[in-house]
């Protein structure tokens, strides 16, 4: 048994980890794309549809009440997990991208030509494109916080050029392509000094770090459930009450209204103003169950164990001739983006798949980072707390075999 975590026991919670791929035991190292789901969460999903599937917030009948209670309980679980002051500051979304678009859309009426929006150089496309669209709508200018070759943000130019024209700053907490943990505390503080709002994309951070959103004093923070052992298609947007009250609703529809007539509609209060239509009820409940599952293990223990996996994998991979890791910052999570010299990442990923090892290849929806390094993409192995040191060994052996076949 591992001193920090009983990984053998934990693995029993994940039925998918027992399957084979191409006749070999699956080694799942694409956790930064989506994490696997424990039986405890699967049970909650099955239980919902087996026992109390109903529409929420409006029904007088018992099933609707039970579903509403479970859904609202999940909201409270999310609130507590991220140390959010009020539960109405938790907006249930379809995922991180939805949350970002909600804020980007809401800011349309607040921005003017000449205003500035800053994004970091290591953003996911979902945190670049909505802001570009916002700039097109409003005439605001998109500025970029640069990065260096070790894969860390360079904050000096940002500090120097921040001004009262800066309205919004966006940055991911952790880069999905490199694993770098960004200095968001400093970014938030600097942005607030000039009165700008800050949105942090927490999609990659949530599996590794239990962010204290009150301590961070961040204005918006978005997450996806499927990165933290929950289902796909559900997530949450945190927003400070003052901002959520100011922002116009994102979509019109049922659930988000107080009163409707053909002359005028008044909107519902928070959080319902941003939750038009029937939500992903089962997904939301399972999202809460996923957080309960992680908290029962303990986020600190998860982080410590993943650091060990990262350190071991990094040192073993670097022993391979011609292997380069992208993202060598000192502060990073269990994501290793790498290439073999002269070999296309797609070739490596294809051969690893034949060996039952699931990694991601390509630009990881972060083309600006690939352009910065002048590479077509990378192979990305991302580890979760249910991965083992022997799986790292299989990855390393697999990469060696691929290198041999491809060179």
């Amino acid at each position: 048994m591992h001193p920090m975590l009983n990984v053998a026991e934990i693995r029993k919670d994940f039925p998918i980890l027992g399957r084979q791929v191409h006749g070999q035991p699956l080694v799942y190292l694409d956790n930064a794309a989506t994490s696997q789901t424990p039986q405890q969460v699967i049970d909650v999903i099955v239980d919902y549809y087996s026992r109390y599937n109903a529409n929420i917030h409006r029904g007088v009948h018992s099933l609707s009440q039970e579903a509403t209670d479970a859904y609202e309980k999940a909201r409270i679980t999310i609130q507590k997990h991220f140390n959010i002051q009020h539960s109405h500051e938790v907006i249930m979304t379809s995922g991180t991208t939805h949350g970002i678009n909600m804020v980007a859309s809401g800011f349309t009426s607040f921005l003017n030509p000449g205003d500035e929006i800053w994004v970091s150089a290591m953003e996911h496309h979902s945190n670049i494109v909505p802001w570009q669209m916002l700039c097109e709508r409003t005439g605001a200018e998109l500025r970029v916080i640069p990065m260096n070759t070790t894969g860390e943000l360079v904050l000096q130019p940002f500090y120097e050029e921040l001004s009262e024209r800066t309205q919004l700053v966006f940055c991911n907490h952790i880069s999905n392509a490199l694993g770098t943990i960004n200095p968001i505390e400093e970014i938030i503080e600097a942005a607030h000094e000039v009165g700008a709002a800050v949105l942090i994309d927490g999609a990659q951070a949530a599996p590794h770090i239990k962010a204290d959103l009150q301590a961070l004093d961040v204005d918006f923070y978005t997450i996806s459930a499927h990165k933290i052992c929950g289902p796909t298609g559900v997530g949450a947007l945190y927003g400070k009450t003052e901002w959520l009250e100011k922002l116009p609703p994102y979509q019109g529809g049922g659930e988000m209204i107080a009163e409707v007539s053909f002359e005028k509609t008044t909107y519902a209060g928070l959080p319902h103003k941003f939750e038009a239509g029937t939500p992903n009820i089962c997904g939301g409940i399972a999202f809460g169950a996923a957080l309960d599952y992680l908290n029962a293990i303990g986020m600190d223990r998860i982080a410590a164990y993943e650091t060990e996996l990262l350190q071991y994998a990094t040192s073993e991979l670097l022993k391979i001739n011609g292997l380069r890791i992208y993202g060598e910052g000192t502060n990073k999570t269990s994501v290793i983006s790498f290439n073999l010299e002269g070999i296309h990442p797609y070739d490596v990923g294809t051969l690893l798949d034949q060996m039952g090892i699931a990694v991601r290849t390509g630009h990881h929806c972060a083309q600006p980072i690939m352009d910065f390094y002048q590479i077509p993409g990378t192979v990305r192995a991302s580890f979760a707390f249910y991965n083992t040191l022997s799986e790292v060994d299989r990855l390393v052996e697999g990469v060696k075999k691929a290198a041999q076949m491809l060179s």
Partner: protein
Amino acid sequence: MQIEAIQEEIVDEFSMFDDWMQRYEYMIELGKSLPKISDEFKTDDHLIKGCQSKVWVHADMEDGKVVFTADSDAIITKGIIGILIRAFSNQKPADILSAKTDFIDEIGLKEHLSPTRANGLVSMIKQLKLYALAYQAKIES
């Protein structure tokens, strides 16, 4: 040689392999013997969309037959386009257009056939057939 006969030949070659490693090693070999596209055609116009790696294809007409050349920045992709070119190059446009592509399944590359697969095998076949269609239209006009 007819397209069908070439395809059978390829299927025969692949049937000799017992495991995936031999299959992929052979594909890598095939990639190395791919009729290379000349550098002047390695432009965005010749890129096939929908591939995670870059694939350039060019077609010429010689004595009523379409001659394909190609290249890729990934070795396995080179092998895949190499197999396709071996089956479809030096053939009449009408024959290319009517040719089946079932042999891909038979050589164990079926997994690459899904339209969402990052290597874009489907896009490659479509592109070769589009070239044939263009030359067929030229012949008929």
